[in-house]
């Protein structure tokens, strides 16, 4: 690297905003389990399933009267959810059955149904339609009917084929990435995990999402905490899944460019749509009217000690404000509460960090004592508040070169986040 380049970088990169996270928000919206066309052919068999369950089920249930409108016909709009209901029912019936062979058969049937349901959560609309078609004439509650096994067999075969095709397609290199390295296939693979962390592990409560514009550029500025940067993934997840207009907006988080020098982490970050935190990148993304998330505290925030929790560190030198002023992007302050406690960092072992080349090395009650188990974050309850946007347009792009404007705006954003955090902390009764 030449001298001139280094000088340029040092001069123009006052705050590399720091974050690393798994972001699931870029996947195409149609990958969600989406409504398929209503399945009418199932009605006859469904009616037969409505026959009250007998302690000793008949191998051939008698033909039933015309079907009454059934609320559970949500099957076609929420295929996987409905499949789980059916699975439960099959399991109950199998448990009530007297013949042992019949009960074990029922268990197998229930297991297969749950497998199909699990897989259907990940399918695209087109694939769900195909599965619906295959299961068309089959009553999923009647596992003693040979049609049931035929239908399930066909669906399983189809699913295996899909997986094999997917792997073959990857092996042939037939997939597309964007010039930043974002790979929609990888995001699809990560999505269920991040969704689990969001909904089940941390039970994230998102507020003020209406402050995130449904279109056009905006700069999300958040507090950074929690040793490992999970907060970015959760912010992205909140915007992608809970925005009131359901626009499924992609949040591009900026991470410390140091991460791009790490093996395995660098390609993973790129594939999930993360971008190194250089001002050029932020300006380019905002000029393309994207939603960009920065963490101006950087390493100082994410490597905070437990005793300093919820005290915002210095907001760099206001580089993120300069970016917003240059592009006229509104700033949305974001306050994350709950992430500070996921890894209570008692001590920063700087000598080990220096030896390993890490920015910090956390000592928590569980790490490094429990090894990999110590990296499991505590299941705290989170709250993410999106504050009203601060407009930067009235200052004009020239203001980016005025240190007073930049620093006072940075202070204003920091105060907003700190106040919001304090309010949320006062409202909170328990960290779990």
């Amino acid at each position: 690297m030449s001298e001139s380049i280094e000088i340029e970088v040092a001069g123009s990169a006052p705050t590399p905003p720091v974050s690393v996270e798994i972001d699931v928000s870029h996947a195409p919206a149609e990958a969600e389990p989406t409504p398929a066309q209503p399945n009418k052919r199932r009605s006859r068999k469904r009616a037969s399933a409505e026959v009250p369950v007998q302690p000793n089920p008949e191998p051939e249930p008698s033909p039933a009267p015309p079907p009454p409108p059934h609320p559970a016909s949500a099957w076609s709009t929420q295929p996987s959810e409905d499949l789980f209901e059916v699975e439960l029912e099959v399991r109950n019936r199998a448990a009530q059955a007297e013949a042992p062979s019949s009960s074990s058969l029922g268990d197998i049937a229930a297991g297969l149904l749950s497998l199909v349901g699990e897989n259907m959560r990940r399918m695209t609309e087109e694939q769900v339609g195909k599965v619906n078609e295959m299961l068309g004439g089959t009553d999923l509650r009647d596992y003693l009917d040979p049609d049931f096994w035929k239908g399930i067999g066909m669906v399983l075969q189809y699913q295996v084929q899909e997986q094999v095709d997917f792997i073959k397609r990857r092996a042939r290199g037939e997939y597309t990435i964007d010039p930043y390295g974002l790979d929609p296939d990888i995001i699809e693979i990560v999505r269920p995990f991040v969704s689990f962390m969001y909904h089940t592990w941390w039970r994230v409560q998102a507020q003020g999402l209406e402050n995130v514009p449904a279109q056009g550029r905006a700069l999300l500025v958040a507090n950074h905490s929690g040793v490992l940067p999970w907060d970015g993934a959760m912010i992205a997840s909140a915007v992608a899944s809970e925005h009131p207009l359901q626009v499924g907006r992609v949040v591009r988080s900026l991470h410390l460019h140091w991460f791009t020098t790490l093996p395995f982490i660098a390609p993973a970050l790129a594939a999930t749509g993360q971008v190194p935190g250089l001002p050029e990148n932020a300006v380019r993304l905002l000029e393309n009217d994207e939603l960009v998330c920065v963490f101006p505290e950087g390493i100082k925030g994410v490597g905070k000690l437990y005793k300093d929790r919820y005290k915002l560190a210095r907001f760099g030198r206001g580089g993120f404000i300069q970016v917003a002023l240059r592009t006229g992007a509104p700033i949305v302050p974001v306050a994350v509460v709950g992430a500070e406690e996921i890894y209570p960092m008692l001590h920063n072992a700087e000598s080990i960090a220096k030896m390993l080349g890490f920015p910090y090395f956390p000592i928590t009650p569980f790490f490094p004592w429990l090894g990999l188990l110590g990296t499991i974050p505590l299941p705290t309850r989170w709250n993410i508040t999106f504050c009203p946007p601060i407009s930067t347009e009235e200052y004009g792009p020239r203001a980016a070169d005025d240190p007073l404007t930049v620093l006072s705006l940075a202070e204003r954003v920091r105060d907003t986040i700190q106040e919001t955090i304090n309010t949320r902390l006062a409202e909170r009764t328990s960290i779990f």
Partner: protein
Amino acid sequence: MRRVLINGVGGVLGARVARRLCEDADVTVIGLSRYEPLAPLGRAEWLVAQLNGLQLVELLEAEQIDTVIQIDFAGTEAPVSSREAAIQQNVIGTMDLLGACLRAGVQQVVVRSHSWVYGASPLNPMMIDERRPVARSGLRGFLRDLAEVEIFMGEFAEQHPDMRVASLRMAPLVGGWSSLIDYFSQPWPRMLIGFDPVIQLLSINDAVEALAHFALNPCSGPYNLAADDAVCISQAIRLCGQLPSPTIESMIVRSKRDVSRDQPQYWPVDVNFMRHTCVVDTHRAKHEMGWAPQYGAADSIIATRQNGQAPPDREASEAALRAFLNRKR
């Protein structure tokens, strides 16, 4: 009436640019090559010689050339046998040519360059535009020659503002010979374990179009050229029909002793390009020059894998036959 000289017309790219320019009846094309051209040049006339600066001036003046295309670079059409000769040809050859153009009053010079002259670094922005300076270290071989040429051209253009000097920084070409695609196509090409940067490519068809377009229209300064889509290195290898084998760095970099050309080709450029990205922004070429790539990176690799053969398309073959039989006698 334009009179264009192509230096380096002997290779595949040069021949195709010559034929492309000959389609325009207003353009006279003169070719200069170090060896007998490998492919037909259309109605272009050519000369096989290695000229020094003064001889170049004589040629340019006698033929009243107004535009020069410089694509005579060692390492672009075949593997380099001697580093010293390659530097002589690439760096000194281009300096000679630019000096001769100045002396002979040529209006415009278009030089082929490479999009990787910015170097690969973690500090690179995701999309590099032309304002970013060329890397002065961290490059080797052909790329280093080109970076030197670029630096010289920048200074030259500053001192002689009345002459238009443009450099086309093209992503690695797909089609024809290319050290990169060669590397990807060998069995088990090695990759750096844990890294898989994005790379850009450019179809040779788009490169031909760009050279002709930029030569015939006024332009100056650097222009980035690349296909609109990008691929990961592992993806490019898979598209070439191979599987990548992740290895550690010392197994990829060719050691100093091991320069025998019989060995399988190692990674042809600096190993940093296996670790970090060097993705360029083609906005300037598109908006100032109206150039746009017609072929995608992934599609061009797949097309090359079939050995450049035309796809078995009956209608296209029939049309080609009709066009050939009805050609002007």
